[in-house]
């Protein structure tokens, strides 16, 4: 009798307690759901609230009135984003700067990845390490280094003036050029690494065959290498483009008063104007804008992690 009931109890307990397989999944799933996915819904919710002077500085959407739950959606924040040309122009400027930077990263990164792939295996590892090493040191400090280089009386201007190439210092710091340099510099390793992986997988007998059949270097590049490394190009471009759209530190430190990128706007709305609902609306629109590139990246990365 007792053994029977204890067996029953045991069976009941095993059904109740999750299996190991389930527990392994549940821990990261729960954490990421709570701290990564959930926050977006809250941002979306607060983008429909109104700013008030209180703690926290926004109104509640749901209120109890006359024993009924009332949901008040305030579209004012979104209307504000459309009415004030500042927001639209800064979205456009962010996308433009991020696109051009991505293209620059690709144009610089592809030859570099190619050169690393075609080195001897021992050199390959050293070169890869040299590419990654700068990104292990502080990002903020590397952006800061460019201030010292690009300043009017900085490193670059000093050298150019000393060698007599220019008579007057070039104004580079606090212009869009400086922002481009900063973004390309910071994100270049993120472009090179997926390109390197893609180029390592290419079957080089195809390149050889194309050459034997008389293809020029340009033809080999356009018709053989680029199509074969498409996945790497997409991954690298997304790794540069998406974070660059929302970049705050680089335009803040290197950009001028007219480089108003959307990341900077969001920061200012939040920290300086303390208008949290508008900041949430800015973030929601940015997220919507980036949804397609993020899905592109997600599909590549998922295949990468599951393959093999």
């Amino acid at each position: 009798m007792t053994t029977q009931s204890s067996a029953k109890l045991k069976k009941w307990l095993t059904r109740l307690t999750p299996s190991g397989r389930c527990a392994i999944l549940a821990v990261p799933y729960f954490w990421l759901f709570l701290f990564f996915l959930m926050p977006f819904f809250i941002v979306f919710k607060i983008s429909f609230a109104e700013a008030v002077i209180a703690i926290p500085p926004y109104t509640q959407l749901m209120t109890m009135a006359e024993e009924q739950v009332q949901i008040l959606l305030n579209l004012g924040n979104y209307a504000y984003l459309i009415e004030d040309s500042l927001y639209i122009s800064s979205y456009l400027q962010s996308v433009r700067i991020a696109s051009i930077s991505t293209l620059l990263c690709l144009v610089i990164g592809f030859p570099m990845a190619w050169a690393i792939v075609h080195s001897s295996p021992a050199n390959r590892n050293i070169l890869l390490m040299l590419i990654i090493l700068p990104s292990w040191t502080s990002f903020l400090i590397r952006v800061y280094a460019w201030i010292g280089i690009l300043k009017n009386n900085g490193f670059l201007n000093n050298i150019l003036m000393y060698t007599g190439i220019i008579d007057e210092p070039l104004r580079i710091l606090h212009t869009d050029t400086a922002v481009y340099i900063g973004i390309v510099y910071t994100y270049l390793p993120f472009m090179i690494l997926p390109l390197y992986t893609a180029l390592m997988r290419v079957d080089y007998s195809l390149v050889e065959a194309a050459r034997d059949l008389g293809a020029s270097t340009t033809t080999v590049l356009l018709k053989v290498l680029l199509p074969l490394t498409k996945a790497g190009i997409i991954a690298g471009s997304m790794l540069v483009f998406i974070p660059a759209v929302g970049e705050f530190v680089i335009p803040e430190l290197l950009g001028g008063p007219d480089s108003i990128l959307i990341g900077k706007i969001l920061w200012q709305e939040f920290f300086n104007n303390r208008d949290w609902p508008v900041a949430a609306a800015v973030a929601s629109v940015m997220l919507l804008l980036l949804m397609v590139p993020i899905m592109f990246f997600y599909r590549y990365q998922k295949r990468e992690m599951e393959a093999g």
Partner: protein
Amino acid sequence: MDAIPVYKTKWKWAILGLGLSFLYLPILSLIIYSFNANRLVTVWSGFSTKWYGALFDDALLMNGITLSLLIGFMSATAAVVLGTLAAFVMTRYNKFRGETSFAFMITAPLVMPEVITGLSLLLLFISLGQVFDLFSQRGMLTIWIAHVTFCTAYVSVVVSSRLRELDKSIEEAAMDLGATPLKVFFVITLPTILPAIVAGWLLAFTLSLDDLVIASFVSGPSATTLPMVVFSSVRLGVSPKINALATLIIGVVSVATFIAWWIMAKAEKRRLQELRTGNAK
């Protein structure tokens, strides 16, 4: 795979030379000017190490370093646990409910703009704070949670690439011989993926140490991390003290990377040697 031709053209060296000098020029200039006696950073007026001394007298900076190291250590440790679990799920589970959302949640943090992550986490903490007292004060705990979240994604990428290379037949053999899944994991899987776990830990540690934007959003007045101190100082212009700090960071990172690389190269060599002698028998 072995048939990748090795080119020795001058083009290749020109590309590498130019690319690497672009990557290292700023770092080099930081190091050189950190030894400059002049306050005006870019005007050279003799060798001096006084800024290094000034660095250690700066209490705000020192507090920032301590806090950042502490948060980095705790974030990396938690992220390694969560990230390894996530990598396991991604590489070993065939199909399960919620697979799409799970894959999305560990890939999207890699590219999500920091301002969005920061703002959304802060708004979450505020909403939670209205219910749970734990979140009503923001500081170390909230920064830790934020860092663990985005570091987990990076760790899972690093660990899953190693897990994929792993020969599953050894695990299966152990399982056939009667080892429990837990024992298989600790005796066979874990030692094999340990290099990736260490690499993931280091990556998470540096990412946490480096984060300015997310920490600025989720932190409270009680917690000012190193990047936050540096940023407020850099905003006011270049400062020789920051150059000295940068040089120290670069030095530590370079030495650590070199040691890690050396250890891994030695392990790889030994593995290859064992493989060869094993074949000879």
